[in-house]
């Protein structure tokens, strides 16, 4: 299915190149259709074959290795961001589930936090981080990018987990725990969390892809070198001379999202192995 979808996208791309206007569709002087020429839209096979050639003339090894290296760098950042964001999100959700007053006070700010443009926030995080000196701890630049990934990732986790913790366990199950005089902590770990898992999995999927976006954007706006975000901005500058180049990095960023989503799929499999099969539900 996945391969089929990929082929379809490639076919659509080529189809548009075939019939689309070379210099873009213009309406009242405004370009509303993308240009179909080779600089704006290189052929699919050119993008793929670009992987085999070196990054720049005279460089040894193919660009594939460079892009893979960048992807690995960004993946580690995204993973760090994902873990930080997930832990933060779950922590906030537990606090909000425990104290109604925290939920009412905090939730609106969490929503607002997501409307702050990441590009504006990125330099701030870097400068705050640079001023932090806790003991011998020196804030590395890459950590800023991971934190920005976490900043996008924590939100769906917080909201999804909160929903799961509060509404997934039925009133009968809560009454049962009450009848055992179970503490809030026991109810949290033996009932609320396991019951919330089906709500948390989709939230983690969103968080996984959000952490990739956060890291790529953060690399671009903080100028952090080494990752796939930086490659995208570098290669984009060469778009006129080497139009296929930037796509090698763009695809790598997309693949990162897939790897992270695959990671969550594994978590899903492990966490839901005891649950009733889906066809029995609903």
């Amino acid at each position: 299915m996945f391969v089929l979808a990929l082929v379809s996208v490639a076919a659509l791309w080529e189809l548009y190149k075939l019939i689309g206007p070379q210099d873009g569709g213009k309406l009242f002087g405004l370009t509303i259709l993308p240009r179909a020429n080779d600089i704006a839209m290189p052929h699919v096979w050119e993008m793929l074959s670009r992987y085999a050639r070196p990054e720049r003339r005279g460089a040894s090894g193919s660009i594939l290795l460079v892009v893979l290296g960048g992807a690995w760098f960004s993946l580690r950042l995204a993973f760090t961001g994902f873990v930080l964001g997930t832990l933060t999100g779950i922590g906030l959700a537990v606090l909000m589930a425990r104290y109604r007053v925290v939920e009412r006070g905090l939730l609106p700010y969490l929503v607002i936090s997501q409307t702050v443009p990441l590009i504006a926030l990125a330099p701030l995080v870097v400068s705050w981080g640079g001023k932090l000196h806790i003991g011998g701890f020196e804030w590395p630049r890459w950590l800023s990018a991971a934190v920005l990934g976490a900043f996008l990732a924590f939100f769906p986790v917080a909201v999804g987990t909160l929903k799961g913790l509060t509404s997934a366990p039925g009133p009968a199950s809560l009454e049962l725990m009450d009848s055992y005089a179970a503490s809030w902590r026991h109810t949290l770990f033996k009932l609320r969390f396991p019951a919330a898992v089906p709500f948390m999995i989709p939230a983690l999927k969103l968080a996984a892809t959000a952490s990739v976006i956060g890291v790529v954007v953060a690399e671009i706006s903080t100028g952090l070198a080494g990752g796939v975000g930086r490659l995208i901005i570098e290669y984009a500058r060469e778009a006129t001379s080497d139009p296929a180049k930037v796509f090698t990095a763009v695809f790598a960023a997309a693949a990162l999202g897939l790897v992270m989503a695959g990671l969550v799929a594994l978590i899903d499999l492990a966490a839901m192995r005891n649950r009733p099969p889906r066809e029995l539900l609903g």
Partner: protein
Amino acid sequence: MSEAAVEVRGMTKTFNAGRPGSVDALVDIDLTIRPGEFVSLIGPSGCGKSTQLRLIANLLEPTTGEVLVNGKSARQARLDQDYGMAFQQAGLFEWRNVAKNVELPLELKGWDKQRRRRRALEMLELVKLPEFADHLPWQLSGGMQQRVAIARALAAHPPLLLMDEPFGALDEMTREHMQSELLRVCGETETTVVFVTHSIPEAVFLSTRVVVMSPRPGRITTVVPVDLGARRGVDTREDPAFFIKVTEVREALRGMPVTDLDEPVREP
């Protein structure tokens, strides 16, 4: 004094007390249940029978009056896990296998793993499901799930079992079978039972006393003693003595206004 398994004195429960739309769920409830008794609470919807069970369980606090369980306050009894509880929905945790579900109350009591497992297997033996210990709840039929719920409720060997229409969602055949099984299990474990139902034959078959309640406000109207002997079985349901008691309970329920107070009528 402390001989009673459950002692309810002058208990009243008003929801939304002192506010507009307050509902008198129960008024002037007095009830003493001796150890080893099987007492059913029966009445039309809205008579407060489930509320009364929850007051005994201390899941709700009475507005006035007091509830003692084994001579302790209901709250202390709950903290001490002096009772087990079963609901209409078996309410098994779907992420735990059958044995782990039975172990839940023991975990909360802080029992160690081996002791828990041993007791869980004993309990599954008692409800005749020993081979299902490692099954998951969704792999069991409704009746089997309810048996697991009973095993869970009795796992810590509480002297008192509180049941809220536990067989309400089962089909008639399963239901009759479960009733016999419940009597056997409670007989073997010498457990006192308070049982909420809206089925007259079920109440008569199971109980040593049937407490008949009326709605709006909920109160006890009649208490029907039943003595069908300890060895009740399939034949009991065709025994004339059984029918006499069924008629007696039905008469006691007759003439009650049939209202549905689950959604209280708002008065101006």
